[in-house]
């Protein structure tokens, strides 16, 4: 269980991990996601700190980013990041709830707010949004928030 082991094993899988100081980042294809996640668990990353979606309408993708964290002292300062790019029209990734049990609410939230479908997740129900919410997921870039200017003209 060390960062070197992790980098070596990821490279053995033909991936290109990048060490950014406090994060080891690795980009994977959706079909390889689960395999890499299991590898991370074996290397001591016992839980997820975050699941998020980054909407990139310019490239027509949604980037799903997982941050795994470890409570083992040797891995404290280093998060493991998995990045998956999925098409914006049909964002589907396999659910990692079997690998990291605490993905339960993190994935559900990402589905709720970003519209990413986690296949195999047992309860993709509304979590933070109202149960009857319709319209684009609020964290997508095409959901606009009204903003105001600085100046008001008065008579």
């Amino acid at each position: 269980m060390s960062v070197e082991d992790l980098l070596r094993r990821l490279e053995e899988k033909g991936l290109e991990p990048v060490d950014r100081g406090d994060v080891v980042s690795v980009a994977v294809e959706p079909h390889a996601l689960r395999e890499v996640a299991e590898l991370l668990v074996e290397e001591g990353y016992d839980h997820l700190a975050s699941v998020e979606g980054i909407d990139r309408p310019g490239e027509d993708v949604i980037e799903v980013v997982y941050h795994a964290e470890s409570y083992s002292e040797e891995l404290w300062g280093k998060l493991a990041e998995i990045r998956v790019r999925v098409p914006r029209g049909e964002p589907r990734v396999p659910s990692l709830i079997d690998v990291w049990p605490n993905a339960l609410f993190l994935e559900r939230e990402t589905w709720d707010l970003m519209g990413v479908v986690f296949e195999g997740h047992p309860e993709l129900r509304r979590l933070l949004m109202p149960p009857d919410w319709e319209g684009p997921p609020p964290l997508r870039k095409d959901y606009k928030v009204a903003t105001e200017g600085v100046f008001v003209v008065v008579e």
Partner: protein
Amino acid sequence: MSRRKVGLREHVEAVATGLKYLVKPNRITVYYPEETIGLGERYRGMIHYDWDKCISCSLCAMICPADAMKMYKKKGEKKARPGINYQRCIFCGYCVDICPTNALSFTNVHDVAYESLEEMVYPPERFVEEWVSPAEKEGAKRLKVVFDEERGLVHVPE
């Protein structure tokens, strides 16, 4: 961390502690509105605007995180002046801290009540008004907060 076993002794101890405070209470109540706490000079209360110092740079309106501060521009006039909407203001004090001429400043008045929402919007003309604490206007006694080893906070007349 180790944990002690508890029994009858602890029952007695708990009741005794309760009785101790029943005999010698440690109250922190301030009888507002008869008394009011005089707040320190650093307190971020209602904001005061100095008409003459303002150079209309609009930095205050630009940095306001809550869209409370707006620059009011009279039709035909060139210079815009800030006005504030206390429905929105969160008293973060960014506008005061960024003001390059100290035209905006904090007061230590915070206990203001309004009868209507419209009253809470201050265009520049009203923004210059001086702030007076309504409780103090009614004759509330000002108290000072003093830290005390025995009692935590003690409120003494200023």
